[in-house]
């Protein structure tokens, strides 16, 4: 969770963004022009207020902007990752009003007035959220790309169990309890292609144990 600024000013993200701008200057117009279709209808920006990680953010957005893109491109909160961009991998999972959702499949303008918590809002490098600390302790990540979504999802999931919300593997719909089987089912919307799953389950079990 190091900020762009702490790495001496030159970041991979900065280089990538600068590279795209440079290409435009050098006349590779069509590459960047894909953002605007040839016969684009006029776009009316929409004013939207989000509270992200406790901070009010007033934005004026192209309505096509997903919540994910608003976080990454407009607020520079790049902890939330864009994986499949179609709700299939869970890398973009954030908490909205406490509930986990795929930020890629919702428009930012649909969340006017909502409270959003991203991986950056759960903890800081100096004071990790218990779930972040448990993922570190149990090595719940390898490449790490799915990790922010896994952690946000895990935090949301424990609340869902606490609230008595059943799952597909709950035997008695009125008797919801924590188990590894429940964790596996409830985390199935988050895909990790390194297959760190056993360590992720262990990390979540650890946090649940601390809470219980």
């Amino acid at each position, binding site marked *: 969770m190091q900020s762009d600024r702490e790495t001496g000013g030159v970041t991979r993200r900065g280089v990538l963004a600068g590279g795209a701008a440079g290409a435009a200057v050098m006349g590779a117009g069509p590459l960047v022009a894909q953002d605007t*279709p040839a016969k684009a209808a006029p776009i009316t920006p929409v004013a939207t207020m989000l509270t992200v990680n406790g901070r009010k953010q007033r934005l004026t957005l192209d309505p*096509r902007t997903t919540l994910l893109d608003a976080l990454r491109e407009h607020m520079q909160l790049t902890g939330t990752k864009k994986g499949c961009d179609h*709700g299939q991998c869970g890398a973009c999972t954030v908490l909205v009003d406490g509930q986990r959702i795929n930020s890629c499949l919702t428009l930012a303008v649909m969340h*006017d007035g909502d409270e959003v918590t991203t991986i950056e809002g759960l903890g800081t490098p100096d004071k990790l959220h218990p779930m972040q600390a448990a993922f570190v302790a149990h090595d719940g990540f390898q490449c790490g790309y799915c990790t922010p979504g896994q952690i946000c*999802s895990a935090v949301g999931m424990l609340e869902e169990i606490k609230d008595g919300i059943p799952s597909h593997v709950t035997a008695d719909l009125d008797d919801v309890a924590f188990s590894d089987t429940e964790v596996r089912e409830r985390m199935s919307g988050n895909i990790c292609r390194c297959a760190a799953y056993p360590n992720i389950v262990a990390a979540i079990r650890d946090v649940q144990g601390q809470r219980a």
Partner: protein
Amino acid sequence: MRAFSYTRATAPKQAAAGATGAGVKFIAGGTNLLDLMKLDIERPSTLIDINRLKLDRIERTDEGGVRIGALVRNTALAADSRIRSDYAVLSRALLSGASPQLRNKATTAGNLLQRSRCPYFYDTTKPCNKRVPGSGCAAIGGFSRNLAVMGVSDACIAQHPSDMAVAMRALDAVVETLGPDGTERSIPIADFHTLPGDTPHIETVLKPGELITAVTLPKPLGGRHLYRKVRDRASYAFALVSVALVETADGRRIAFGGIGAKPWRVEAAEALDTPRAIAAAAFAGANTTSQNAFKLPLAERTLAAALAEASAQERQA
């Protein structure tokens, strides 16, 4: 994603009245619509955001059933205490569908309107009569393992993807709507989805601008409620075959998912004695391909397992 204009509606009548023009779509959860917009399959010119319509409550009806607001999220519906106790088949169906993140956003009405997951509907380089009317069907003679075997036509063999709607079909749910002119309609779910025929792009009886406001369930049936779903992985996958079963002292209700162009129920088959007889009657006139013919014996066996489980529960009770 193509450009569109965006408005937020604050009342159902306002939303419906503003939705009459071509290319106007309501957006609620958006989990299916935005996916299709990114793929350039859905191309609305205007989105009316209906999330502020306050249609997010589950209430008792005068008839002793429940009225589920159109905007009730799948998670909230599955977890509602009345749904869990009186309509468990619906809770089970919802919990078997999608992922928790999607269920936290997806709505009751949106689930009824979700589009098929036929691979050729999604592949814009291939002909699809559902996506581009009159362009042809690449699924017929193509990769059809997941596709429908009942209610299909020469123009389309796409399957209906919903689990929720299968349970609602077994429960005789009714879809309540509000038209742009203020007209209210109550549509039995059996009549809500249409078969493809030669117009597979038309999937429901909704008229332009008509807004789903609620889904009502009749008074509880009692009995055993089961939803069994067979799929290629243990979670987060669409059904190859699913069975919604409600077994009561007075009789049983059976609806199948993954089988039909719409949620598939044949009332006349439900009173028959054996899974084989029920399946034979329910699937008379099946139209299979070499790749999806397995769904018929699989559905029969899934039904047999559900009936056996219901009997076992009854003996234990």
